Structure formats: structure tokens, C-alpha cells
């Protein structure tokens, strides 16, 4: 861990215990939503987190933000272990890790004016901005995200989805955080507006030195904005590393299938060899034995069915697979390395 690391997460584990549906059956059912996730985030860096439904990325986000208390593992922010803090101290730490939500429509209280929405963080932490300076700071924030100072008196329903998302970003910036967890920030926006918000996030990052944990299901966006990426499946990170390594040269069969599945807006690449991953994500409450991906993996062997794969480091990426360095996916991924030359 370098001294610059702003957020370090080690072996994070989140388990949900569901209430007994049958009165006398005995043990309660548990769901391991997040298992053994570790990463470290530097200022100015973006870690992307991708995965499909049921992979646990939302649970991970909530645990990192301490909106849900992690079951095990440690979250170390700026050198301080969050689990060792009292509730009060943890609440004070909140100003440093903020969040941008997916849904621009329900993330703003419809009864609040924009002014009230942006001032709420300052009411909670009155020391950050002196009351006399709040109005000017409000205008600054609105301008920072590309809105007008006059918008402060309006209500959320008077804005478009993209504009509301900008307001959400302004709110996240109000406390001058060091880390922002972006939970699917552009998924609910029109395609033509997504690029605006992505550009805004990048600009803010380079200007303010923010670190992002960028969660999205749209791999193209993650590819564009992230420096490194983690791929999650059934609560575990199956592959992680620098984004160019993972996206151009993936090692885990799931990552390959994921990348292969993304439709490419270029008709010339239409006839490439595409992997169609069969089956569905298993029920997280009863994950498969051994490697969680083995039922859907075309390279699975007896070993995969019985033994949980160890973590290995291959070419600078971390992979959870028994055959990490041995599988060759080049036929499916030619298009990914091809286009790199187009730039």
C-alpha cells in the first residue's frame, strides 16, 4: 500500500441473513453477496467495476459507503480503518466518500428546491462552508457541473434526466470529497446525453483530483473512463487489472464472454466469432461448488467442479481461474486488439 492510497479495501465480505421462512426449519438462509473483494484506490484514479445482475456490485458499493455494515474485512480510508471507528466518527468520515446514484428521477427529493438539495450536506456538516459563503459556493457548484446559478430556485421535475444527474454530481461535490462512488451514473440517461456526463466526470476528476469507483454494466463506458477494472461474478472478483490488459487480453473465461457479448457499432465486425454464453447466473443463495463459473464455462474440468480456484497473477492482472495462463481466447478477441491500431 503506497502512502498515497486514499481508499483500501481488504477481503471485504457481505453476508445477508434472510429471515426464516419456515418457522421450525432451523438454520436461517444466508446470502453471500460479496466475497473476498480487495482493491486500492489512488487519488485521481478510476477503478471500474463491471458485472451482471446478481454479481454483488451494488452490495459492494453499499458496503464501501458503509450504508450497510460489512460482515468481514476492512475498509481503510486515508489510513483509518472504518470498522474501528464509532458511529459518530464514521458519520464524520462520510464527507470524504460520496456517491452518485443511478436514477436521476428518484435520487432528488421532489419537494426540495435545488438550493435545498445542495445545501443539505452543509446543514449536516456546518463547518465545511461558512453560512455567509454558502450562496456563492452554491453558484460555483452549479456552474462547475454546467448548470446556471438561477437553477437553484427550481424543482427537480423542471429538469431533464441529464440535468438532474448533474445536480446529483453537484451534491456529491458539496462536501469536497476525495472519493466518489459512481453507481451506474449514466445508465438511465439518453445515449446522446451520456457522453456529456462522462466528459463532465472526467473533467472534474482531473481538476479536483477525485478518485472514482465507477460501477456500470455498460462495458464500453467503463472501458473509456477507468484506469483499472474489476470483473465480478456471483460476489467475487474473477479478474482485475489495468483496463487495457483486462479488456484487450482477458484471462478469465467469464471476462472473455462478457467482452465478446458487447455489441459493437461497426457493421464490418458483424461476422466475428462471438461467444454466446449459455445458461443463467445461478441463484446466489446456492452457488455452485468449486469455481462459481464452472457450470457455464466451456473449459471446465473436474478440478473446476470441486476446487475453488486460487488467485493468480498473470501478466499484471489478477485472475481467479485454475487455467489462468493456459487458455487462448485470441480468435474471439481479435477485434479488440485490432481497433487499438485504428487510433
Amino acid at each position: 500500500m503506497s502512502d498515497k492510497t486514499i481508499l483500501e479495501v481488504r477481503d471485504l465480505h457481505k453476508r445477508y441473513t434472510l429471515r426464516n421462512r419456515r418457522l421450525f426449519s432451523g438454520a436461517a438462509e444466508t446470502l453471500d453477496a460479496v466475497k473476498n473483494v480487495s482493491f486500492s484506490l489512488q487519488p485521481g484514479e478510476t477503478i471500474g467495476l463491471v458485472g451482471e445482475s446478481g454479481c454483488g456490485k451494488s452490495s459492494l458499493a453499499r458496503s464501501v459507503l458503509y450504508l450497510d455494515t460489512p460482515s468481514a474485512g476492512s475498509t481503510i480510508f486515508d489510513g483509518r480503518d472504518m470498522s474501528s471507528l464509532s458511529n459518530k466518527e464514521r458519520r464524520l468520515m462520510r464527507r470524504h466518500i460520496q456517491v452518485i446514484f443511478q436514477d436521476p428521477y428518484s435520487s432528488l427529493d421532489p419537494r426540495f428546491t435545488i438550493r435545498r438539495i445542495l445545501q443539505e450536506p452543509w446543514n449536516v456538516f456546518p463547518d465545511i462552508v461558512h453560512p455567509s459563503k454558502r450562496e456563492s459556493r452554491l453558484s460555483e457548484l452549479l456552474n462547475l457541473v454546467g448548470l446556471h446559478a438561477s437553477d437553484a430556485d427550481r424543482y427537480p421535475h423542471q429538469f431533464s434526466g441529464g440535468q438532474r444527474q448533474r445536480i446529483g454530481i453537484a451534491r456529491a461535490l458539496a462536501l469536497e470529497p476525495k472519493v466518489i462512488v459512481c453507481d451506474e451514473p449514466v445508465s438511465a440517461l439518453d445515449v446522446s446525453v451520456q457522453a456529456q456526463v462522462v466528459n463532465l466526470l472526467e473533467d472534474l476528476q482531473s481538476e479536483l483530483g477525485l478518485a472514482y469507483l465507477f460501477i456500470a454494466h455498460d462495458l464500453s463506458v467503463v472501458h473509456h473512463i477507468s484506469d483499472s477494472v474489476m470483473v465480478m461474478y456471483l460476489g467475487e472478483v474473477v479478474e482485475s487489472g489495468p483496463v487495457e490488459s483486462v479488456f484487450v487480453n482477458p484471462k478469465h473465461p467469464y471476462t472473455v464472454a462478457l467482452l465478446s457479448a458487447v455489441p459493437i457499432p461497426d457493421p464490418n465486425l458483424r461476422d466475428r466469432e462471438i461467444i454466446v454464453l449459455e445458461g443463467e447466473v445461478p441463484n446466489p443463495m446456492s452457488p455452485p461448488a468449486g469455481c462459481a463459473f464452472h457450470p457455464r464455462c466451456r473449459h471446465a474440468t473436474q478440478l473446476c467442479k470441486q476446487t475453488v480456484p486460487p488467485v493468480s497473477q498473470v501478466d499484471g492482472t489478477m485472475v481467479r481461474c485454475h487455467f489462468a495462463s493456459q487458455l487462448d481466447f485470441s480468435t474471439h478477441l481479435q477485434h479488440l486488439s485490432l481497433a487499438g491500431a485504428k487510433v
Partner: protein
Amino acid sequence: MSQIVGNPTVEPAEPDDRAATTSFTDYLRALLRDKVTAVAALFLLILLVAAAGAEFLAPHDPNAANLRARFIPPLGTARDGTFYLFGTDELGRDVLSRLMHGATVSMSIGLLGAICSAIVGVSLGILAGFYRGKLEIVLMRAVDGMMALPSLLIALFILFVIGSGFANLIFIFTLLHWMIFARMARSLTLSYKEQTYVTAARAVGASDLRIILTHILPNMISPLLVLFTLEIAVLILSEASLSFLGFGVQPPRASWGLMIARGREYISSAWWLVVMPGAAIFLAALCLNLVAAWARAISDPVQRWRWLTKPSTEKDAT
């Protein structure tokens, strides 16, 4: 902090004249569109004025007996020339004045009882819905249990023990009516709690109290108000029943229920002694129900367009 985007690149918000919450004048205009509810609201207003100003507005002293003017029918005149709009009762007391003073009793008990029940019920309901766990289980079982009890019998029993009177009535009503507010407040809290803007407030570090007071409670006011209006009607009826049975307000204080009880013996000869207070109870409850129904419809954004002058448009229709 320098500005990344020097001039805002995004156009300002639409100069939409609609506020997020409709103003009082909008509601007033909407009310006037619905003739039936408007009349009901007017009646309630008159009732309120009569109740509040009974002391000054009543033509006669409600307790002044005048044995020479007994049993005068409505619109009748006594031998000494006094006009009685609703007639007089067995002691020669002016029915109208008694009705007005009775209104004071009914409205104040109805209102105060509903307010107290609401305060207790909503607080408990919010706590149950917000914190869940054992608190919720205990509270909701208490609600279920108490709602299963026959409220009238319980009321009679307790009043028998502690004695009747204004304050005791309020106490009984609070005891027997907080549950319905608690249930509604709990279920509303459960749904509001899951809204993303509540999660956003938590992420910003807002305390539970702040979240409840600024995000959850204000959104609840509208549906709770509807329930509140209905409960006033229920309490007015309950008070009338209790007074009729002799356990509510005591004579010489006038109460509609009491007037019916006394007037019962003369029902064949002086029908107005029962019909006037009965009609007052009936109309008060009916008008409260009508206004509550209208309030429920208008607070539903989907139905609201039928009454408001500036209905919401489908901004994002494709």
C-alpha cells in the same frame, strides 16, 4: 475552486410555472370545480364558525329554560313573539342555540381527539417503519390486538371507571384511535425509506431524525390528512353515541348525542328534538367524508388533472 466549465454548456431549466407543490389558491379553484364537495366544504365552514363563535352567535342562552315556550315547532313563534328557527325543547330552550353549542363540543372533541391520536399514532408508526426489528413487531402486534377489541364497550367501561368529561373523552379516543394512524404511518414510512433520495441523504451523513423530519414526514402529510379528516367524522359519531348512552358529555352542557337521548321520549310529538341534532350529526359526518374523498382524489397526481387548472403534462412521452 476554479471553474472547469467556464460558461455553463447546458441550457437553463425550463421556465416552468408549476411549483412542485400546488398552492392554496390552486386547491381552492379545484374545490370550486366540484360542486358537491364545494357545498360540503361550505357547510363545514359554517359549522366551524358556529362552533367557534357559539358564545356570541347563538340567539339565546342554550341553558335558559322558558317554561312558557315549551315544544315550539321549527319556524314557530312563542306567545311573546320570539322566533325560534328550530323550535324549542321540553324545557323551552332554543334548539338552534343548543345545536350551536353542541357543535362546539362535537367539533372540538372530534378535532382534538383526532389530533392527539394522530400525534401518538404517527410517531409510533414512523418509528416502527423506520427502525423495524423488534420495535416494529411489538408495535404492530399491539395495533392488531387493540383493533380487535370492541372499542365502544372498552370506552364505556373505562368511562364508567374514571368518569366522563371532556378530558377523559379525549383520552379514550386517543387510546382507541391511534392504531389506524400508526398503521398508515408505518406503511408510508416503509415505502419512503426505500426512495433513493433517502439513501442519498444517508450518504451525505444526515442523521435519522433529520431524514425523518425533512424527507419522510413532509411527504406523508397529504395521505395522512385524508385519514385525519375521516377520523374527525368517526370521533364526532363516537362522541354522540357515548353522550347518548350517558357516558359522554354531561348535562347541562349541550351535545348532539345528549340532545337525541333527551328528545327520544318526545319523538312522536316533538320530532324536531331528535331530527335536528340527528341531521347535524349526519350532515357533519357526510360532509367530512365528502371532503376527505375529494382530498384523496386530488392528492393522487394521476387524478389531480381533473380539477386543477394547470395539469401536469407527459414530459417524457416517446
